């Protein structure tokens, strides 16, 4: 059992534009005039040493306990990939039903075609965060009203897959 946990995180943004030159098929890419460079930030989030459950990271199988296994494990042909498949239906796609305060959230869209949409305020909330394929988002929880079970995800069309961290913090 860990004595403490934390998450070091950083953000890096590169705004650019490309322009077609006189010669056919020759383009050049430059920084946008403003900010004329890259942007970014970094920080560290303390989270509880004891989390709400093993599923606080997607890399732990949601049926990791023997008593949760509905079948004889050696007859199963699949191993847990660490990725959660999601569809366009948000119902039951909350990452957890635990109501602890959210300390840190990380979601990566590991799919190849469709966007992952994220709501921070419930299943019927605003899916305002968009994660393109291979993109990710992270944030720290800033309110005691923001709980782990406030976060819902869905795919903008068809299906996609995600990996995630949804960590609790005790105020």
């Amino acid at each position, binding site marked *: 059992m860990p*004595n403490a946990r*934390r998450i*070091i995180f950083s953000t890096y943004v590169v*705004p650019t534009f490309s322009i077609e030159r006189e010669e056919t098929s020759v383009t050049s890419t430059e920084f946008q005039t403003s900010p004329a460079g890259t942007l*970014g930030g970094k920080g560290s989030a303390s989270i509880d040493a004891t989390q709400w459950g093993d599923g606080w990271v997607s890399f732990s199988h949601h049926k990791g306990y023997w008593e949760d296994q509905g079948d004889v494990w050696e007859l199963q042909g699949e191993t847990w990939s660490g990725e959660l498949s999601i569809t366009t239906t948000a119902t039951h796609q909350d990452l957890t039903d635990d109501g602890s305060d959210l300390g840190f959230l990380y979601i990566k869209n590991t799919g190849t075609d469709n966007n992952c949409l994220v709501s921070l305020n419930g299943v019927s909330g605003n899916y305002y965060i968009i994660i393109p394929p291979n993109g990710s988002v992270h944030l*720290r*929880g800033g309110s005691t*009203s923001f709980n782990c079970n406030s976060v819902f995800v869905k795919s903008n069309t068809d299906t996609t897959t995600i990996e995630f961290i949804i960590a609790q913090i005790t105020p």
Partner: protein
Amino acid sequence: MAEGDKTYKVRYKNHCTPQERLVASGRYYLDSDCGRKLTGVADTSATLTAAGTLTTGAVISTSTLEIVTAGSNADFVYIKNTGSVDAIISLNGTSGNYYILLSEGEAFASEIHVDANVFVKTASGTSTIEHFSET
């Protein structure tokens, strides 16, 4: 694309490293529940049609500051807390949910829905931020 035409793009990366320590005052190691560092890198999926503008030194207080107007077709937002007092962010209006916390030096970057209405404030005191959004 014709000669002289410009195409705009924002590539962004959000990276994190979960860590744990086994004893008080001990050294932190890579979290064993996660087992690795995590990173996603992508361009915005929306087609950007104009250059963005970076605003620096914007002062925030307990009164809200609007960063992105609802329906303004902003497709990407970046906010960094450059002050020393924590900032909190709402994506759904001035009376919305200020769920995202930024301490000094931390940044939030994401592609966002065009209906997102982004506000920033502090819980108490004043701070400064830099922000960048693009449509």
